[in-house]
């Protein structure tokens, strides 16, 4: 998948002139049989963001969503002639249409927001990848049956093994976080939970007693945190410690419930 970054930036520039069409579709793997924890987080983050911006879209579940995506990332949206994958490019694309969520922030707050988003991506996303792909028990009982949902034997074993190696190996230009590059493959599960704990602590401190992370108005950070928190809470895993860690921060739970009630209960 070469030159995705350059072509995407061109696409984003060209797409800026048209308004948001009515028939935008968001593609993801099957909810009940196929999708995995890190992808649930990404899908829910993007959905929360689009709903916060009041942009209509419909969800299309496909078995080969990962291969359809231009960069291999889930979810991706089809907006007219443009196909854009992953949270950051989608946010940039929406911004070119003149729709902003964090316009009310000044530059230092925006830098702050990017720092926290980067923290969430580095820690929470990596923890989800670790638990899904590196933890042996979860891999055998949950990941392998779900990832190989639509593929016949023996192809499913080959594809699952390839994906596992790709997730654990050194980084490549496709942008998916690789665990080796941040030396997570050698961590033990306990260390991973400790990292998640400190990340949640930092987030809870930033949230404090406010409604949202930057006052009363929602930002991309809210969408991102909602995505990861909701994914961890609703995805059944053999080991419940991740859920317990999140549950021990009541402010984060309330933040999650607030956004859930506003944007996800009636859909």
């Amino acid at each position, binding site marked *: *998948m070469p*030159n*995705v970054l350059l*072509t*995407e930036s061109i*696409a984003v520039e060209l797409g800026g002139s048209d308004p948001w069409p009515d028939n935008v579709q968001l593609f993801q793997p099957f909810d009940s049989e196929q999708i995995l924890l890190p992808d649930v987080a990404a899908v829910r983050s993007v959905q929360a963001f689009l709903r916060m911006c009041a942009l209509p879209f419909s969800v299309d579940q*496909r*078995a*080969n969503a990962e*291969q*359809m995506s*231009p960069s291999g990332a889930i979810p991706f949206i*089809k907006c007219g002639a443009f*196909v854009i994958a992953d949270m950051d490019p989608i946010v940039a694309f929406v911004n070119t249409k003149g729709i902003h969520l964090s316009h009310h922030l000044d530059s230092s707050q925006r830098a702050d927001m990017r720092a926290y988003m980067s923290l969430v991506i580095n820690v929470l996303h990596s923890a989800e990848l670790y638990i899904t792909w590196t933890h042996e028990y979860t891999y055998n009982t949950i990941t392998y049956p779900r990832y190989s949902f*639509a*593929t*016949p*034997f023996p*192809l499913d074993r*080959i*594809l699952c093994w390839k994906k596992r190696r790709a997730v654990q190996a050194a980084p490549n230009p496709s942008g998916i976080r690789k665990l080796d590059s941040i030396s997570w493959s050698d961590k033990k599960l306990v260390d991973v939970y400790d990292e998640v704990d400190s990340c949640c602590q930092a987030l809870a401190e930033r949230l404090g007693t406010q409604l949202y992370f930057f006052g009363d108005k929602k930002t991309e950070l809210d969408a991102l945190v909602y995505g990861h928190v909701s994914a961890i809470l609703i995805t059944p895993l053999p080991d419940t410690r991740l859920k317990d860690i999140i549950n021990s921060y009541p402010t984060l739970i309330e933040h999650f419930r607030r956004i859930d009630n506003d944007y996800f209960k009636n859909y």
Partner: protein
Amino acid sequence: MTGSSLDTTLADSVSSTGSSSAGSPKPSATASSGFPALNLDAFKTRVDVINIDGVGRTRNDILDPLVRPLFEANTFEEVVLRAHTVRRRLEELGAFKAINVFIDTSSGDNATRDGLEVTYSVVETRRVVGGVNTSIGNNNDGSVVLQLKCPNLFGRGELFQTEYEYGTKHTTGFQTSFAKPLVPWLWPQPRLTSTLFQSGFDAPWSGFRETDRGLHVDLSFKSRPSIAHSVRWEAVWRDISALTPSTAFAVREECGHSLKSSLKHILTWDQRDNPIVPSKGTLFRLQQECAGLLAGNVGFHKHELELQLNRPVPLLSDVVIQASLRAGIMKPLQKIDTVTCINDRFFIGGPLTLRGFNLHGVGPHSEGNALGATTYWNAGLHVYTPLPFRPGAGGFGDYFRAHLFANAGNIGDFAYTDDHYKNFNILLNRLRYSVGAGIVLSIGHMARFELNYCLPFGQQSGDQTSPGLQFGLGVSFVYLKMQI
């Protein structure tokens, strides 16, 4: 390597010494040579001894049944004919580089009166043979092939071969195969081949890149001397990925991995004198494939036929009229959980099929990418002549032909009813056709270059035409990749 004609075989391979009844036979002895014309089947002889000189690693249990038919000959003519047949069988074994036949009278204690001794003098192939070849595919692509062969590996005609291919359109491939003739002395000559391969190529007309990995097991045999069959089972893992970010969404929806396990049967009856620029003869090919029976998630059954008739014009010399028809139909299998993929469907259009249109540029398209369809037919009428004023006649000029052509075809996902008349009309409705003239160059009797001036008609929405000059490179057959 085809066998030489009977006359030359007789002339240079029959040798006799001594004064016995065979004499120095020449079948069409002319009066000027001073010998009377001989009737070869008047000589009653039998073969006493068969020698095979130069055998190293080839096993006797395979040579023995191959040469045994010689013992059943009763007359000299039969001996010569059977010696020729046995020589051809030994060639087809693939174990020998050179075979010479000597027929002599038999001498010694056990010799009978009128007995003959036949000696095959052979040179075995080397153990390892390598080479660099070029290969031409059907999509205006060519590639370099590095090949390593081990002929006659265990002494019974087995062939072990690996090759690596690198070519245009980002074609790469690797293949290793093992072939074994099963019972080469029986007339069907069955041959079992198993191959492991990986290949990848770009399909820019549809905007995807395909990577195939898999294996196939092939049994080929003849049901008649001129009818060749190939029954093949293959299991292929296909990976289709979008070639550019601007690939049509309809093609993007088909990206992904699929596993195809299919049974294929190819029947070929080829009576033409030349596969690339034939001057007479007929070709009939029938290919049928059924995927999804045993495993895999791709299910369809596909039938294709190709018919080609060549006739030289009665009064004008060297002018050949060729009529050809190719058609195919494909239906999904009714099993659940099976899909049909874009790389299984049919495409037409291009310099060798429907001239005047872009490569695979006819049929359903979405945003400029060809989607393929489930039914097609493609007919052509050509008149081949030597180049005007015959430049280079007798040498290089013989590889060129000028031709006038008319091509027609249709492709689509047609829905058939029970009414044959209506179905016939559906196939003819919206047909595309083109006429033109051009020059054909035959390369090594394996592939052809064409430079044509074409005028396409009947273009439908989505078709991509290229009127005017069009250049093409490919092979007459649709599915094989030939090697020069």
